[in-house]
Each structure stands twice: as structure tokens, then as C-alpha cells.
């Protein structure tokens, strides 16, 4: 029984090239055909089908704009597919680390932000009280927890964000390029946490441009190219395939 199943999923976005609905633009467009607002229909994902079993760690690779983040957002049900269906196990709790620390309010303290952020992820007051000490300990920010977030460095923000997400105890973890910031020590700790998750039978979908990060977590790799799933299989073969396609694109 898979935990996630994508059935020929496509997602279309409208790109407004002359990004304005202003009357001025409409009026000018009426006079000058070339100044008319053009709406391009852009397929972020085309006919992607995937089955992911519990306990699997899937690495998603592909160039910028190939639809990796869109796929994560469809799995998280933030977006709805234009066609096809994304099905997720009924009781699975999804932890999305698509952008860490995004709900943080700069004026609030670290403590207040932990409570707000955990509430956004649907925890009740009691549950938040229970995980709070673990979050603070994991982030290593005991000393700064009553300081407004606006005084945090971006690395500290990131650590607090990851600490919250790691303690939400999700069944499916969606990670999008989260190791761009953070020192080596923190990255090391993230990796340990993720491997701990896998050992507990949780599912991870991991978007990264770093082959070493993918090697240390994933056994399976999917390659996306312009919204199409071009490879789905063994990790080393996938990374090789991805490098090959990049190289061949660069040659052209």
C-alpha cells in the first residue's frame, strides 16, 4: 500500500507577462496590439505518475523551474492539480519544510513564534507545550529564545524552523532545498535527524541540488525535466542520468 500516489498529475499556471490588470494597460493594449497583456499558459508538471511506499526516501532532482517544488506543493495539497489526482494516506501527518520559518513574525520572540508556527501546523495547545522543550533544545537557541526574531541571523531562523518541523513528528516529510543556509555542524545534525526518521519508517521526499546530500539519505531518485518525469529509479543511476542530461543540454 503506497503512502503517496500521484495519478497522471498535471499542473498549469497562468503567467501574466505584462503583469497588470490595470485599466491603463487594458487601454493601451486596445490601441497597441504589441502592448497587450499576454497570458501564457505554463505547464509546471505534465502527466507525472508516482507511487511512494512508507519508509522510502525519494530524492527529487532537476534544473530550476523543472517542477520540483510544484510537485511538493501538490503532495502537500497547497495547490490542486489541473488534471489527475494526488492521493495521500488518510491519517498521515505531512510535515512540509518547503520554506523554513516562513510564518515567523519578526516582532514576536522566538518562544512566541514556536507557539504560532506549531499552531499553523495544526497542533493543539497541549501538544505544543509538550514539544516546546525539545524544540528549544534541538535548535540550541536557549539563550535567544526570548529575543524578537527580527534580531536573529538567517542561520538562527533556519535552525528554529527546522527544530519546529523536526519535532512535529510527521509521517511524510517534504524538504525543499533546506540546507542552503546553516553551518556544517547544523547540517550534520539535520542529516542525523532525517536518517532517524527513516529508521522509524517515515517517508521523506527530498528536493536538493547537492548530490552528496541526496547520497546520504535517498535510495531512489526522480528526475524532472520541464515538468516531465524523465527518470525514476536507483539513486546512483538517477544522479548519473541527471548529470548526463545537464551536460548534453550545456553542449547544445
Amino acid at each position, binding site marked *: 500500500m503506497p503512502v503517496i*500516489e500521484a495519478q497522471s498529475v498535471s499542473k498549469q499556471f497562468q503567467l501574466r507577462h505584462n503583469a497588470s490588470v490595470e485599466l491603463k494597460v487594458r487601454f493601451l493594449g486596445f490601441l497597441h496590439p504589441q502592448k497587450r497583456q499576454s497570458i501564457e499558459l505554463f505547464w509546471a508538471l505534465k502527466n507525472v505518475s508516482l507511487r511512494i511506499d512508507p519508509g522510502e526516501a525519494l530524492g527529487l532532482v532537476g534544473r530550476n523551474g523543472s517542477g520540483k517544488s510544484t510537485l511538493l506543493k501538490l503532495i502537500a495539497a497547497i495547490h490542486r492539480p489541473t488534471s489527475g489526482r494526488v492521493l*495521500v494516506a488518510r491519517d498521515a501527518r505531512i510535515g512540509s519544510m518547503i520554506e523554513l520559518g516562513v510564518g515567523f513574525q519578526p516582532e514576536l520572540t522566538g518562544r512566541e513564534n514556536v507557539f504560532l508556527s506549531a499552531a499553523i501546523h495544526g497542533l493543539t495547545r497541549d501538544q505544543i507545550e509538550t514539544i516546546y522543550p525539545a524544540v528549544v533544545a534541538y535548535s540550541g537557541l536557549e539563550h535567544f529564545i526570548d529575543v524578537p526574531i527580527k534580531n536573529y541571523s538567517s542561520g538562527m531562523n533556519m535552525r528554529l524552523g527546522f527544530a519546529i518541523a523536526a519535532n512535529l513528528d510527521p509521517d511524510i516529510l517534504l524538504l525543499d532545498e533546506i540546507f542552503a543556509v546553516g553551518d556544517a555542524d547544523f547540517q550534520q545534525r539535520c542529516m542525523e535527524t532525517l536518517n532517524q526518521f527513516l529508521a522509524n519508517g517515515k517517508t521523506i521526499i527530498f528536493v536538493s541540488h547537492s548530490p552528496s546530500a541526496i547520497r546520504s539519505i535517498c535510495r531512489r531518485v526522480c528526475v524532472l525535466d520541464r515538468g516531465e518525469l524523465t527518470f525514476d529509479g536507483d539513486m546512483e543511476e538517477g544522479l548519473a542520468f541527471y548529470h548526463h542530461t545537464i551536460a548534453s543540454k550545456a553542449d547544445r
Partner: protein
Amino acid sequence: MPRRPSWPLSVFVDGCLAAVTYFAAYWLRFPADRLGTFLPKVWTTMPWVVAGQLGALAATRAYARWPRIDWLARVISGVVAGTAVSSIVIAATVGFEGVSRVAFVADAVLLSIAAVGWRGAWVLRARARARAAVRAASDELVDRAEEMATVGAVATGLYAYRELLRSLVVKDLKLKYRGSVFGFLWSLANPLLMIVVYTIAFSFILRVRSERFVYFLMLGQLPWTFFASSAAMSTGALVDNAGLLRSVLFPRAILPIGTALFNLAQFLLTFAVFLPAMLLWYRVPPSIPMALFPVFLALQVVFTIGIALILATTTVFFRDVRHLLEIVLAALFWMTPILYDVEQVPERLRLVISLTPMSPFITAYHKLFFYREWPAGTVWLVAVAYALGAFIVGAMVFLAYEDRIMEQV
């Protein structure tokens, strides 16, 4: 289950509602003792009005099989055009002898709300049924985006995320006065200063003599502020939280509803200070009608939540809403019986004033606390119609556009 009601059903329901609202418009216009003299004319003109409205609805293609996305706007324009046409026809044939012109305005407003409201309820029910069918089909794996898109799912979602709702309200209260010396006292100082300014202007400069003016003013000013600042804040509820919306899944309706509840919390805090103070100062003894206050406040909250959902959604697509709303709120303030009593309004305008959005609620508060009487049946009718209408339309607009909101913010 079709996504829109079939046309025979629509014509039938609209026809019934048109007859009811035409009668209700006269009821709103005239007190019971004078209503009797107008009734014969109401019955003779009613077929014309109903026929005109149904005809105009058909002409604006409100009954088309696949109405476009501006369906509800077509329904409203159909009702308004139909009312206008039938009033002109009646003026030309039988004349306005024994027929009220203002009642046509009320009829158009009431029928618009009724026609849009029942369609909204129909669509929301169709969605819930479609979801139930999907749910029954799959057992282990579920389509979460589909699951969230009904009123019932949003309601259970709001309950599951009650801690978030509470946190959002507390966060806004904390942030509003953080760093200021007087803190929460500003919540009291603001309405106090407003009341002082209006009292000076009206009692001492314009010399409008009225009994217990400050008490009267407080009863209108505070609920108005609750409504107006909810409306103003709700325009940013989705647009200003784009990052959050794009990265975490949660019931998004919580954001506009949260702004309404935040302003409710502020209103209750100030009202809890001002009301007892005024009751003591003017030595107003408590009375039984005052017990109705929670009922009308609940209606106002439902109404405000509906308006907040509509404004938050439309702002995503048209940022103009923010700027337009400022002007509309300024105009509405003077068209709402806050500084004056509905009874002071010239009789011809009275119906129009009593139909502005916040009128029924504020009139009710005046009745309950100032006159210590039961609110009239007409006030009940308008308050309930506005609350239900705004809520149904708000829920429908929000759910119908939720996917596109996510792509646009």
C-alpha cells in the same frame, strides 16, 4: 449532481422569493397601521414586478445552462434591472398612486440577497455531496485538496485549528501595542477621543440637543469600529500572508475569519469598559431586552465574517478593493444611524438608511440599550437576511476561488 440548479427550479424559487420580498419591502416601508391601506395595490402590482424581475433575470442569462464565472453578478444585475423596469411600467400604466417608490429599492436589495443567497447555498450543498461521493469511493488514500473544499470541512478544520485561531488573535493584540508606552490603553483612548470629538461637534458647535448623546453615540460607534476595521484588515488577510499560504497547508479561511475575531475581541474589551461606565453614569436601570444583545452581536459577527471572506478574496484579484473600501466605509459611516437616530431621518430616506449594511445591527443596539425596548420585526428581518446572505456568499466565493487564490498570491 450538477454544479448549478436547473432553470425550472431557479425560476420557481426566484418567483416565490420575488413575491415574498416585494411584500417584505412594503412591510419595511410602512408601519403596520398604514400597511393595510397599501395592501390592495401590493397585490395588483405584484404580478408585474415578479414578471419583470424574472424576465430581466432571463435576459441577463442568469438561467443559462452554463453561466460564466460572473454568474452571481448577473443575478444581481438581473434583479436590479427587473425591478427598475417593472417600476417604470407601473408608473406608466397605473401611476404611483398607492404604490411606494422607496419600496422598490428595498425590494431590489432584498431580492438580490435572497436570489444570490439561495444559489450560494445550493452550490455549497452540491460541493458537499460531490465530496461525500469521492470520500466514499476511496478508503485508504484521499485527495486532501478535494477534502478541504467544503463548508463542513472548513468548519471541522477551524475546530481542529482552534489553537491557531486563538494564536492569530492573541498575536495581533500583542503586536498592535507592543513597544507603545500606553499599550492596551490606546484601545480605550481611541473610541474615547472619537466620542469626545463628535460630542463637541454635535452638542456644542452644531447645538443638536439630544438626551444622553454620549451614551447613544457609544452604542453605535463601537460596533461600527468593529465592522469597519474588520473590513479594512480583511483586505490584507490573504495578500499579506502570501509566504505562509504558499508553504504550509492549513484551513486558509482562518486568516480572514481571524481578522474578524481579532476585532471582535477588541470590541468586547472596549465595550466591557464603556457600557457599564455609561450605564452607571446615566443611571440606566437594566432591562430584559438587553439580554438580546448576544443574539444581535452573533448576527453581526456572522455578517462581518461573510464580508471579510468576500473582501479578502476579491483583493487577491483586484488590489483596487483596498482603496475603494476606504471611500465606501467613509460614506457608509454617515449613511448608518450612528450619530443620529433612524427616527430622525426624513420618512422618504428612512428605508434607504435602514438598509445600509450596518444599520439593522446598530439600530438594534440602540433599541436594546438606549430605549430599553424590543427591536421591531423589520430590524430582525434585515439583520438575519444580511448575516445569512453575507455569510453564504462569502463562503461560496472563498471556496470557489480558493485554488486560484493560491496561484495568484
